[in-house]
């Protein structure tokens, strides 16, 4: 698809080699420092960059948006929005977004392709959509926070959020506790005793351990960490597929101030034509579930999925994405209540979701640590999926240790050990627990599964930057061509005009034709005084205009004097505007 136009070719040639500014360390991504960095981009590049406020989080942190554009009238050009870090632990993605923005701003003066992009496009960056949850990364003890607010009475004891995980042994991280217990459901993975797997009685396996989140029993009910404070997750709090009465989904869609602010922000950008999300969901590597464009509603509810016509485009964009970034990291496949799903399903916006990195599940190649660290885990994951689907092994009743296949977590440890990333797994350490007595505390560390190793950051950011800056060519852009008038007889004129869209995406996605949330292009015949319309409508709304050279033709009959000025105008909110005088055809 993305026909390598000169603009795109130049981008690749110049940017990959020249402009990488190294990403900082994790500490540089705290809310305060990220805000400073965004402000610095805005102040250093006042010609293209400006800082805006999307909203304020529940705990009072600003959610910021950096806008880059060289256009004189931004509302006259399509906009592209990049959002990251809706899920608390994925702070690294914020850094990548900041890096994208900084590189584009830096290159605006010197790089022709970047200038071409920003002079025709508005690019919005929201690097940290959920600042409260992200702060868990910088807190002490370190804890993965997904939720940002409201306490639900998870254990139905009439108290809310009274017994959550905590750093019980004071080692600075909140992990897992295991207790020897004949009723326990967990046993050691035969290939790696550090890993616990669920015992399967059907296979004659016996559990040995009980697992708990690292916690005390603060409410004295002999369960541990069962009622954590803060249940609502911002990225489950959007209206499409919202899970009512599920704690993580929140009290009602958009009750979380971050979610509502993002909705309002998206709705306010009437020229928005494409959304990109770097977070825990993906529709570029794994093909999303799709449904027929005209799938019949079930009990009046339309079946959910990407509409077929849009899915075809998405698949092609995904193919290009994988080719350029070499990324194979998949999401969890669950998009109920997410921002990305709302953008597509309720706003009709083509929305691209990428997971930048997942914890690999094979040992890194001995000589190429950096490559392995990139997280090329696609093949192995498929294998794991095939394992799950396969019936239990029948040939051996007793699976000897040497035959046993490592569990997913054991595979992760192969990589962790091989890459020397020992911080990612805390070895089981005995601890005398005030309520449980003798326990062991350890397991995967917070952020072990979502944060790439420092030496892979630049490479991931580079690959995604190159892909991202090519996205300007996807955005629909309308043009009036072949605007002519032909004299049919004295005073009678035939006016014709053709509307085209040379970009990849159609003027309106199939979903947007359904949601009616962005208005179609309006084609108007501009008649002078003294002229009368003999045939046609003075206004035509154009909904269906394909990309890649899609055309729509219009025709009017007008009665008026020879010398009159006739013209055709077209305007839209998100694909540009144009006026063209109807020239006398030869």
């Amino acid at each position, binding site marked *: 698809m993305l026909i390598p136009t000169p603009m795109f070719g130049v981008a690749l040639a110049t940017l990959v080699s020249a402009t990488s500014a190294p990403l900082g360390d994790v500490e540089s991504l705290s809310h305060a420092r990220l805000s400073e960095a965004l402000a610095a981009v805005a102040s250093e590049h006042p010609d293209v960059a400006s800082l805006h406020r999307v909203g304020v989080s529940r705990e009072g942190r600003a959610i910021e948006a950096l806008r880059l554009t060289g256009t004189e009238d931004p509302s006259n050009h399509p906009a592209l929005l990049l959002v990251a870090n809706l899920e608390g632990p994925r702070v690294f993605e914020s850094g990548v977004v900041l890096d994208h923005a900084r590189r584009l701003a830096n290159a605006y003066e010197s790089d022709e392709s970047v200038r071409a992009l920003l002079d025709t496009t508005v690019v919005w960056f929201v690097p940290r959509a959920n600042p409260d949850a992200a702060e868990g990364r910088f807190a002490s003890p370190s804890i993965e926070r997904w939720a940002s607010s409201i306490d639900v*009475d998870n254990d*139905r*004891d*009439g108290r809310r959020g009274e017994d959550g995980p905590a750093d019980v042994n004071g080692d600075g991280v909140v992990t897992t506790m295991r207790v020897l217990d004949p009723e326990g459901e967990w046993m050691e993975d035969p290939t790696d005793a550090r890993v616990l797997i669920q015992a399967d009685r059907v296979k004659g396996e016996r559990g040995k351990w009980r697992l708990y989140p690292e916690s005390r029993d603060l409410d*004295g*009910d*002999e369960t541990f960490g069962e009622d954590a404070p803060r249940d609502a997750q911002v990225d489950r709090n*959007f*209206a*499409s597929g*919202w899970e*009512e*009465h599920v704690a993580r989904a929140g*009290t*009602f*869609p*958009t009750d979380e101030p971050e979610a*509502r602010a993002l*909705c309002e922000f998206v*709705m306010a950008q009437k020229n928005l034509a494409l959304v990109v999300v770097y977070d825990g969901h993906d529709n570029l590597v794994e093909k999303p579930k799709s449904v027929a464009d005209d799938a019949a*509603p*079930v*009990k*009046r*509810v*339309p079946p959910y999925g990407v509409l077929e016509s849009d899915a075809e485009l998405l698949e092609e964009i995904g193919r290009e994405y994988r080719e350029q970034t070499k990324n194979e990291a998949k999401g969890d496949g669950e998009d109920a209540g997410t921002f990305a799903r*709302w953008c597509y*399903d*309720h*706003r009709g916006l083509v929305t691209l979701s990428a997971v930048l990195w997942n914890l690999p599940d094979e040992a890194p190649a001995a000589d190429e640590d950096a490559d392995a660290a990139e997280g090329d885990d696609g093949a192995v994951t498929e294998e794991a999926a095939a394992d799950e689907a396969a019936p239990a092994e029948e040939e051996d009743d007793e699976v000897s240790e040497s035959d046993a296949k490592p569990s997913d977590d054991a595979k992760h440890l192969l990589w962790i050990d091989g890459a020397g990333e020992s911080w990612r797994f805390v070895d089981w350490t005995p601890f005398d627990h005030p309520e449980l007595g003798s326990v062991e505390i350890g397991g995967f560390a917070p952020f072990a599964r979502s944060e790439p190793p420092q030496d892979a950051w630049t490479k991931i950011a580079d690959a995604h930057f190159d892909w991202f800056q090519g996205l300007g060519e996807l955005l629909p852009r309308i043009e009036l061509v072949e605007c002519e008038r032909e004299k049919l007889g004295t005073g009678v004129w035939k006016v014709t005009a053709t509307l085209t869209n040379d970009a990849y995406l159609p003027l309106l996605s199939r979903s947007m034709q*359904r*949601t*009616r*949330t962005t*208005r*179609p292009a*309006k084609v108007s015949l501009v008649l002078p005084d003294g002229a009368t319309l003999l045939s046609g*409508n*003075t*206004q035509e*709304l154009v909904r269906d205009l394909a990309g890649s050279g899609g055309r729509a033709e219009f025709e009017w009959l007008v009665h008026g004097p020879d010398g009159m000025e006739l013209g055709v105008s077209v*305007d839209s*909110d998100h694909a540009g505007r144009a006026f063209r005088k109807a020239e006398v055809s030869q």
Partner: protein
Amino acid sequence: MKLAMKTMLALVLAASVPVAQDAEAGFPGLGAARNPRVEIAWNRLYDFEDIYAHLDRLVAEWPDLLSMQVIGHSVENREMRVYTLNNGATGADTEKPAFWLDGNVHGNEVQGGEGVVYCAWYLLENYGTNERVTELVDRSAFYLLPMQNPDGRSNWFKHAHNAHSSRSGVMPLDRDLDGLADEDGPDDLDGDGSIVQMRKYVPGTGTHRLNRDDPRIMERVPTNERGIRGDWILLGSEGIDNDGDGRINEDSLGGYDMNRAWPSLWFPDHVQFGAGPYPLYWPEARCIARFILDHPNIAGVQSYHNSGGMILRGPGAEVFGPYPRADVSVYDAIGQDGEKMLPFYRYMIIWKDLYSVFGGFVNWTYEGLGIFSFTNEMWASNRNSPDDRVEGGSEGRQWFDDHLLMGAGFVDWHEYDHPLYGKIEIGGFKKDVGRVPPSFLIEEMLHRNAMFVIRHAETMPSVSIAEPVVAELGDGVRTIDVIVSNEKLMPTRSSLAVRDELGAPDLITIEGDGIEVLAGGFRTDRFRPERIDLQDHDPARLIRDEGVGSLEEVRVRWIVRGGGSVTIRVTSEKAQDASRSFEF
């Protein structure tokens, strides 16, 4: 303090308030106040300002029972007011089961506003003299919001409309997607203050003919093969093509539906017309939702709408599935009483008997929050005349207008020169015909609906603790048996709330410095005390997630060591807490 004590105190307080004139004058059998302290004419409809003014008069007259708070503002910055009816002498409103009553979410469905005012007025006027009103007011609270959509109401009163227009709020919306919002609604072409219909005489080429007996009435000419055509066409509501796009009246004021804005089974506009971009998008709905969420003591909801003679309950959509059986029993008991109290009303399930509604208000309050909720469609046009000979439809309405309104509800067809259609005729029923009662039937509608609200509110749960029975096991160990009962139809927790884990569980606790609670739980067999669901942890604080059911008795047993002064307490979100202290 025990409930009974509080009620007595309240009666004493109420009796000491000087009563204007003679409350006993008139005929004691009448339901409404005999000699009202606040006179309000109940045979007319009131604009936005007057609705609040009436309620403010009630606040001034009964400052100890009625108070006002502003919970937000509408799109046009009108105050969203909740009036709280509560007797502070019997406890804070938040400690009692509360009833939420509102009206007029659709701007044109105005009489819900009067319905709310009437209910407040009736309860206040009869408090202290009518035993049941006094008991109800003392044990519960009412949150009264007369207008969910004050902008729509105000617009309907102040501008030219018909019975169906101004349903929406007034936030501009580009319904026809031409880049302009609300630019082409109906127009009062002849400036007479009404939006009525347009018709044009097209001899031999039309779709309609005039009724032979009454030429004001248009009849569709049936399709036939003999070539019979009508002489008239209907051209819709009064209007012109304001924006020159070739269409008429395609983008009117607002164009959304605030009764599709609520979070339960909400779907966007392309599935559910009028739903908006996300749930609770409009400020009116948002502030109401916040208030209701902040008041988990709300146990009953009524949201007045205006037309059809219906007592509606959810589900709003088939896809929800049926409501839990025990809750349906409660709904049915109240709804069936309502059918008897409200002539020509039918008790109906929204999706099955009316149409599918996604994101409706009473769907959210029950399906989202577990509150027993109804919507009454207040006006039943059969009330015009119960006589079968005055049929429904155009003839009946025209007959009623001629004979009981002296023709005042109808704009006679008259000529108009339309910029596009040329010579046409304009005429039809005015906005106050069809969905609101004529003046002489308003009071009856308000009263019967208020009585239905009161019937609904009287079922709100009331929990009490019977005299405990203490038995010695020896060595200072004793059993304490207690019966906690709910004398009302409505359970402290609806089955749906239990199923979906909504709200807080009820708690039944025992406290006493001289006792150690060894065990405790709920007895499952009234004759076999050993059959008991013991609570493993903290048996002095028993968690009762299933609440105390409709007319249910819950048997609790504790085994304790020691004695002395002991207090048993029942805590429930939707019932006033009950406690009982005793010594042994």
